């Protein structure tokens, strides 16, 4: 396959993003509404191209790897970007201005994630990561008049830049110790010469930098504040796609290039995973704000995902891939429902969700089932995805870790059901009308629910695809 064909997904995404930016500047304010539809349709079209390329394999200019693993993540980013677009229609339409830039930035952030997932070289990886972070920073601050949003943006840019600096410091040591920025060469040098102290220092710094992007404890402090302050659809995007991008890059570097250094970081990953699961789930219990609750839940999800890294096997990587895809649909459904509620009532507080089941049965049902899927209750897809992760760690002899994860899942059921209790048993505030959900959002919510049920009852197609994609690492 030629270079153009291999890069078609990225090129189309870049063209869409820049095109939206240009057209958004030329269009008069009233007509910018159409950009939302163009962005959604364009992203769906690109997803179709990516799906057609799911088996494609090739390397562009030594440093950019197209393989099933990267394409799997690209499909995941595109799916979450499409859902974010649909969730944003009304939310962003109500802001005084700036619709054109919003969708352009969203597409460019998606492009950054794609670069991260496919990068086979450190500079490319860094550029992708920064394209994603900087675009997301602007999106987080998008409610310009809102102090919370401005503050969230400040926290995100400062902590994001700080984590990038730490990551880069580590990358500079990896470059120094191996003399190359190509992951392939780095892998060869490490396999030949073993882990030198210089490389060890680099690995620790890189690990800290990635833990930041994934929001794993103790590098999670930014997540709840940023998630609460950001516009709700962007919070959803941030929690699923940017976390997945962090995992994609992590797997590429640590499983693809540095499997020889496994002994150095294995214990650290166990610690990160345990801390994330325990602290994320326990601190979620007292939360009163739905976005903050979901923020702590997403910290704990990072802990579960790290179980797949602990397993250090093809099964573990496949479980991570499957889990993150299901997580996209469950979390985006929850955030889309929260957005619809916010558009009507202007509130994110769980107490205000009281009686939602009577005001909008659809929203309540979607929220209930997506939260149950996050908790891992059968027959929803979240159960299957957790099951694979637990099997993967048990396979490596970490039975205590699997037990702890199951225990923490039980804890999560408690706080997820608090929301359900408010929705189904609470009294709706007097005089409040039914919540109006636009048609596009209804379709997106129903599709998410369908995905959660379908892959919960019949996971084989997706697990087959995920495990095939995981064969890239450790599989040969």
């Amino acid at each position, binding site marked *: 396959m030629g270079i153009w064909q291999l890069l078609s997904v990225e090129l189309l995404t870049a063209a869409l993003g820049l095109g939206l930016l240009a057209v958004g500047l030329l269009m008069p304010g009233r007509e910018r509404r159409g950009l939302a539809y163009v962005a959604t349709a364009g992203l769906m079209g690109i997803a179709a191209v990516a799906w057609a390329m799911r088996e494609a394999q090739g390397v562009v200019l030594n440093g950019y790897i197209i393989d099933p693993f990267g394409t799997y993540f690209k499909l995941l980013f595109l799916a979450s970007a499409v859902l974010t677009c649909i969730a944003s229609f009304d939310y962003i339409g109500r802001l005084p201005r700036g619709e054109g830039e919003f969708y352009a930035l969203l597409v460019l952030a998606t492009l950054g994630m794609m670069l991260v997932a496919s990068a086979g070289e*450190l*500079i490319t990886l*860094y*550029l992708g990561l*920064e394209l994603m*972070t*900087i675009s997301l*920073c*602007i999106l987080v*601050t998008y409610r*310009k008049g809102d*102090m*919370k949003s*401005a*503050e*969230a*943006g*400040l*926290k995100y*840019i*400062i902590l994001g*830049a*700080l984590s*990038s*600096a*730490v990551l*880069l*410091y580590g*990358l*500079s*040591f990896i*470059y*120094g110790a191996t*003399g*190359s*920025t190509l992951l392939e060469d780095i892998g060869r040098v490490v396999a030949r010469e073993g882990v030198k102290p210089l490389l060890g220092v680099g690995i620790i710094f890189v690990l800290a930098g990635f833990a930041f992007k994934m929001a794993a404890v103790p590098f999670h402090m930014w997540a*709840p*504040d940023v998630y*609460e*302050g950001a516009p709700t659809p962007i919070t959803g995007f941030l929690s699923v796609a940017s976390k997945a991008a962090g995992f994609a890059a992590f797997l590429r570097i640590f499983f693809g290039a540095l499997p020889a250094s496994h002994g150095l970081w294995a214990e650290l990953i166990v610690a990160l995973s345990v801390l994330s699961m325990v602290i994320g789930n326990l*601190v979620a219990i007292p*939360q009163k704000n739905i976005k*903050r609750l979901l923020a702590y839940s997403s910290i704990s999800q990072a802990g579960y995902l790290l179980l797949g890294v602990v397993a250090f096997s093809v099964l573990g990587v496949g479980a991570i891939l499957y889990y993150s895809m299901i997580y996209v649909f469950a979390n985006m459904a929850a955030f889309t429902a929260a957005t619809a509620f916010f558009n009507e009532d202007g509130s994110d507080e769980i107490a205000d969700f009281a009686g939602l089941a009577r005001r909008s049965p659809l929203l309540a049902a979607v929220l209930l089932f997506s939260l149950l899927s996050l908790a891992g209750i059968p027959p929803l897809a979240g159960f299957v995805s957790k099951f694979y992760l637990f099997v993967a760690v048990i396979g490596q002899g970490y039975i205590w870790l699997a037990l702890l994860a199951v225990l923490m899942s039980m804890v999560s059921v408690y706080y997820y059901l608090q929301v359900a209790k408010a929705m189904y048993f609470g009294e709706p505030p007097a005089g409040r009308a039914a919540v109006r959900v636009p048609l596009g959002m209804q379709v997106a919510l129903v599709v998410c629910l369908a995905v959660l049920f379908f892959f919960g009852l019949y996971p084989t197609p997706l697990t087959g695809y995920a495990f095939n994609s995981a064969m890239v690492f450790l599989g040969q």
Partner: protein
Amino acid sequence: MITLSHYLALAGLLFVVGLFGALAKRNAVAVLMGIELMLNAVNINLVAFNRFMNPGEVTGQVFALFVIVVAAAEVAVGLAIVINLYRRRLATDVEEADWLKW
């Protein structure tokens, strides 16, 4: 004779000073300056490794150039966000940005 370790020590020192500035300073602009110092430490590292380990190539220097460009973009966005906050609150003190907490 200046060796690689001298450069690495300088970069390490600069990184720590920057990290301290980023964590201890209260003014958001000063925090961004601290992060800038950390990135410059990275650049010194990259160029020094390039010069001493593989002088035949320029990968490290190119990497450093990319870091400089991206850092400029990052600071541009960061300062825009600080100005946005300042216009509303007339303060750039990070400790006053405390609406969000658990």
